[in-house]
């Protein structure tokens, strides 16, 4: 086992442009998906947290449950949508990085929205009276709280990023794992594993983990600095 890990690292260290293309694509797809999901998910979560409407409890339960959407099911669903035989076939998006971004956004959106909803709801308890006293209502209140707790929302965003970088089911189905076009780290690892090239798969796996670790560390430093500055 140790052997495999070491030869994996060696392989990766000597690997060429192709590897960095794959890493680049993985980051581009996952970061784009997380960015989109954040743009939609944070306000959505805040709105549910602050709003009062019939069926609110049911919406919260469903949103939380959607965090557990199996990636391969999402992939299948998006595939059927984007396939030429499907409703959005005209767009010709199947087997492109764009399709992968769409699938991952769908996967990650509930995670960010549900976690944001919880954070905003907790914070709202602290802010509500004062904000209402100042005459702040509804949408403005939700956005004010959202912005105020922005650094603790980083955790929700990181959870989404973790999910996106780790999944293989969705991007495999909608991307097709096409060499040079839609091949990302996770699908490459899957491919190399099934070819029996375990050292390479392990090496790539470690690169993937290292990147995600680095992103998390950076976010942690940002949070820490903000905490000290803003209190």
């Amino acid at each position, binding site marked *: 086992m140790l052997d495999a890990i070491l030869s994996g690292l060696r392989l990766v260290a000597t690997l060429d442009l192709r590897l960095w293309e794959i890493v680049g694509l993985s980051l581009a797809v996952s970061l784009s998906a997380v960015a989109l999901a954040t743009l939609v998910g944070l306000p959505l979560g805040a709105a549910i947290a602050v709003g009062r409407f019939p069926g609110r409890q049911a919406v919260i339960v469903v949103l939380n449950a959607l965090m557990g959407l199996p990636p391969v099911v999402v992939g299948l669903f998006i595939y059927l949508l984007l*396939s*030429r*035989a*499907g409703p959005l*076939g005209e767009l*010709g998006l*199947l*087997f492109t990085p764009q399709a992968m971004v769409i699938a991952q956004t769908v996967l990650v959106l509930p995670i960010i929205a549900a976690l944001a909803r919880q954070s905003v709801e907790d914070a709202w308890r602290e802010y509500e009276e004062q904000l209402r006293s100042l005459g702040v209502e509804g949408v403005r209140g939700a956005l004010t709280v959202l912005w105020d707790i922005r650094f603790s929302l980083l955790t929700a965003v990181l959870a989404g990023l973790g999910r996106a970088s780790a999944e293989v089911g969705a991007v495999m189905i909608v991307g*097709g*794992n*096409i*060499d040079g*076009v839609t091949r990302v780290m996770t699908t490459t690892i899957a*491919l190399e*594993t*099934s*070819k*029996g*090239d*375990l050292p390479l798969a392990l090496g790539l796996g470690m690169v993937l983990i290292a990147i995600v670790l680095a992103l998390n560390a950076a976010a942690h430093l940002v949070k820490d600095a903000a905490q000290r500055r803003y209190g």
Partner: protein
Amino acid sequence: MGLAAAALAGFITVASTTSTEQSGLFKHLLPLFERNTGIQVRVVALGTGQALDMGKRGDADVVFVHAKALEEKFVTEGYGVRRFEVMYNDFVLVGPKSDPAKVGGGKDIVAALQKIKAAQAPFASRGDKSGTHFAELQLWTMAGIDIAKDKGPWYRDTGSGMGPTLNTASGMNAYALTDRGTWLSFKNRGELVIAVERDQRLFNQYGVILVNPAKHPHVKKAMGQAFVDWIVSPEGQAAIAGYKIGGEQLFFPNAKR
């Protein structure tokens, strides 16, 4: 043809099988085609059934698989324009060095399968309705065995692709039927070696079909046809023959003139 094709730059989507992809053939072949025509080929590698399904949905421009009966049905049902034979490769039976069923070195696959069943030696099957899987089922039938009824715990249906099935076989020291291409590039052999090969019945024919633009108008007809034309042309056929792993040729071109 070179000049006319060069005017068509862009890409086509080819649906093929995982075993073909994993053999490394495309990495060798496609750059040659692209240099020749300027057309980029994007291969989506799935099981044979899925690849043909992709063709039926219009998500591919060309299908390139190895299941003759299914391919002919694909054309007669109107999903494909015409089937051209391209090349063949062969299957081999691999098994543990310890060879519990005593089939090693044989040239008769049917006899080997009978011995394996008699010895109840572990056997890993793809079980995924792929071309390889169908070939395996046919061989059991030829051996007079109704494998669906007569299988026991020694027969493992992995429901997965060639690579994962070999991984399982390697891990379990089981016999398995695999295409030579996947075997030659498979790096996790453990104690597996080739047990039986070169039986005529182990040969595996490939066909290439342009997806029918009448059914799917968006299909890239000209570029797809250029691919079909090239792969059966003398240059394409020579390129196929030129692909070797460890000095061994994997695919044998046999397009009809």
